[in-house]
């Protein structure tokens, strides 16, 4: 029996000595412990791998901090982050697969609360008068269980669930109304819901698969991708909706079925959108779509997030196979020059500012 023990011991010793456990899968944040005046990049991570993160970039201070939520709070942020927003004294992060909303102090990123009930496939978030609105797909395969959940922004308790059409995605708060773009989730849809208070006040039909909304000068602007080729490809379109009458005032249709616009934005009296790897802009009073792009964003491997802020365009690029770190590219809006680039976490899908 002695020989047996010796054998076990030797085998264990041999194999354990070959094994080292260094868990460096997520780096600690570097740089400041407060996050002000900078750029927040939301990284979706990978489905069911729990590696969503926020990267903080302060170009003026030359600071890049990765994974700030986990760094500050010592717990993973969650799975598949889809939106981040700042409202009053709080930061809100929507985690689609975790079915949670993390609420943090916007300056320190310390966790304040977590909403972990009444969410089902939550997507995007908006605020109006002490109320938090978040779009929910429900079951992806069920076309009738989609809703907008409304929570109190002070105590984070559910106020109501508003049933809406299939696939509510982008959401925008403007002048007391909440506008919801129904891209369709797992399916396709072509609607904008207008919510006033806790009621759907109107449903407006737009082009197939609305994927971006912006409000400017009395109008709501909606980019619709059009159908992808496997569903009988159709060209995208841009709808201009009159905010007074809540009717479509004009539809700008793209000429080629292969054209699928995205990332509708408004800045300084102009409308911006992206088409493949180019940024286009046109005036809110234009009668035609622009035919020439404002500038290309060729550095982007795969455009996954986009924003325009204070004279700059921010483009988030996922790594080519979506497994590794992405990049943030910053362009000067006037000339389209690349003025900065930074590493981000995995699959950056949004760029946000706390102002």
């Amino acid at each position, binding site marked *: 029996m002695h*020989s*047996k023990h010796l*054998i*076990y011991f030797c*085998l*264990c010793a*041999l*194999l*354990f000595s*070959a*094994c*080292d*456990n*260094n*868990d*460096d*899968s*997520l780096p600690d944040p570097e740089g400041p412990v407060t996050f002000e005046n900078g750029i927040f990049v939301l990284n979706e991570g*990978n489905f*069911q*791998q*729990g*590696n969503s993160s926020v990267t903080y970039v302060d170009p003026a201070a030359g600071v890049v901090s990765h994974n700030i939520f986990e760094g500050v709070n010592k717990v*993973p*942020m*969650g*799975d*598949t982050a889809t939106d981040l927003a700042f409202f009053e004294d709080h930061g809100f992060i929507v*985690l689609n*697969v*975790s*079915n949670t909303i993390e609420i943090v102090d916007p300056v320190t990123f310390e966790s304040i609360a977590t909403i972990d009930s009444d969410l089902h496939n939550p997507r995007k978030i908006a605020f109006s008068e002490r109320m938090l609105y978040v779009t929910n797909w429900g*079951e*992806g*395969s*069920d076309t009738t269980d989609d809703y907008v959940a409304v929570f109190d922004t002070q105590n984070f308790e559910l106020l109501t669930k508003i049933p809406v059409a299939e696939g509510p995605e982008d959401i925008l708060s403007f002048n007391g109304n909440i506008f919801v773009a129904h891209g369709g989730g797992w399916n396709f849809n072509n609607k904008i819901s207008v919510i006033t208070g806790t009621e759907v006040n109107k449903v407006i039909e737009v082009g197939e698969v609305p994927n971006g909304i912006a409000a400017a000068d009395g109008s709501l602007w909606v980019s619709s*991708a059009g159908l*992808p*080729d*496997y*569903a009988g490809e159709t060209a995208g379109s841009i709808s201009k909706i009159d905010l007074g009458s809540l009717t479509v005032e004009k539809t700008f249709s793209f000429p080629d079925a*292969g054209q*699928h616009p995205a990332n509708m934005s408004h800045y300084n009296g102009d409308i911006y959108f992206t088409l*493949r*790897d180019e940024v286009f802009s046109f005036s809110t009073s234009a009668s035609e779509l622009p035919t020439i792009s404002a500038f290309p964003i060729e550095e982007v491997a*795969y455009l996954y997030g986009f924003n325009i802020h204070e004279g700059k365009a921010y483009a988030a690029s*996922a*790594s*080519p*196979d*979506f*497994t*590794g*770190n992405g990049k943030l590219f910053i362009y000067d809006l006037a000339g389209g020059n690349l003025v900065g680039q930074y590493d981000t976490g*995995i699959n950056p899908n949004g760029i946000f500012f706390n102002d």
Partner: protein
Amino acid sequence: MMKKNVYYLLVFVLLQAFPAHAQLESLQQLPEVILSDIHLHRSSSTNHVQVLKDSVLDQNQPALTSVLKFNSPLYFRENGPGMVASASFRGTTASQTAVIWNGININSQFNGQTDFNTVLTSGFDEVAIRSGGGSVLYGSGAIGGSIHLNNRFRFNRGLQNKIQLRYGSFDTRYGSLDSEYSNEDLSLQLAVARHQSDNDFPYPESDKINDNGDFSNDQLSLSIGYLIDQNNTLKFYTNYFDGDRGFSGTLTAGSKSKYEDRNSRNLVEWNSYFRNFKSNVRLAYLDEHYKYFENRERDNFSYGRAKTGIIKYDLRYNLSSKAGITGILEYQNSRGEGSNFSGINERNMGSAGLLFIHDLSPLKYEISARAEFSDKYNSPLLFSAGATYSFTDFYSVKLNVSRNYRIPTFNDLFWYSGGNLDLKPEKSLQAELGQNLHFSNLNFSLTGFIINTRDLLRWVPSSGGLWLPENTKKALNYGFESTADWQIKIQEHKISFSGTYAFTKAMDQSSDKTLIYVPMHKGTASAGYEIKNFSTYLQILYNGEVFTSSDNHYTLPGYTLSNLGFNYNFLKDRVQLGLVVQNIFDQEYQSMPSRPMPGRSIQSSLTFNF
């Protein structure tokens, strides 16, 4: 050496069980009588073949994943115990490991892989691991290597039964019945097994448990062998697997989904021998069917179902007692349908192959080639050439060069959003050089390999946001594998050791980065000790660190697992009591990110032989 052992074993079994036929037929015919996968032992002498013993199968958990990860160089990634598990062999992808059931390739038509947690080892007499290229003999996916699940017929043994019951942590239950009846010319085998678990183990260092990870698997196998006359044999095999499982949540997300597998495999085979010819006709019918429920409490599901018919004809002609030539013809038709496909999609494939084996002891060489025609893709000409040379009776060297492939799957070709009919098969050119030391109680092998793969199929995002399969990447894999085993008996004490080690480098040739989920080091070791009715064993597994992102920025750390088991036999070995402690050191580890695996757990077993 492994091949030789098996051959001796087969001959031994046959001589004991079946003296009449053994005398009538030449020894070369014997493997065909008892085993359907004739090429595994007869035409694979220039590849390394590792056969796992029954005792090894009994020591491990019922699913194929467990036995292979603790006893072979294969690396597994698992979404948790009982969840989806895929293998990587020599750093290749999950669909470049072929699973061969009684000589028939059973990888899924949908994703080209086998989920190793949907195969129970119960009912198989032999589990073998054939390293290296084997597409000429086994078709698509035999690039890294192939896993062989075989039934073997024995004759003149009467009725034998084995019942095994196991119970352990997380309400894990297992029960199996293996019955075998044989007379002079008929052999019947029946195996029924059920394996189920709540699988709700606590996540280490967390207040969470493994949520929604329950599973329940049933498997039924039946094999019938009938010796019609001295020159004709008829065989029938069937295997049915029925598995229901929740797909477990993760550290940061719960889950409500459920997955059902219903797979059946059927094979009829007729062997006949006349003059110097051996003829073998096989008809196989495979049916795979899955259902995925996003929410297990609701009736909505998506599904896929594929039915495959195979007809295969092998004709061997013995030029002399030392040389044989075999022609192989095969036709395969697959039809698949499902929620993610429009209508019924069909794929036809025909192939013709030629195999020449020449034994010039101490040199033996094998040359083979296969041409294939399909209505859905263009196949390369496949070949394999190898030689083995025995310098002494205990030392031999093997060399093999081959071209192999992996065909586009139904998902790659027909998926409603992105399916691409212009895909080419993945192609590999590979070589290996092995040496074997073989003594009466010590075996050792060391095999170096290199695999150059091009046209690797990947789903990549297009600019329109759609993921599309494309032939994109080139990979270069190289490394070596080693296996060793040693037994010694000192008076009443029996001591045994075995181990495997694989060193693997797998590089994306365009980025020079290491491919994800390929550990540089993987090792296994086991030790056994037996005295009278008592035996004990220790199993150790080491998986090295793996990259989880193609930029090689993110990793999962390596880990070492150890299991310790005890068995006690009584009533003249008719009853066996067993106890095994898994993960005795309570190692925290993850096989996939955000999915902690269980800490220490216990399982007991009771086995009756009658």
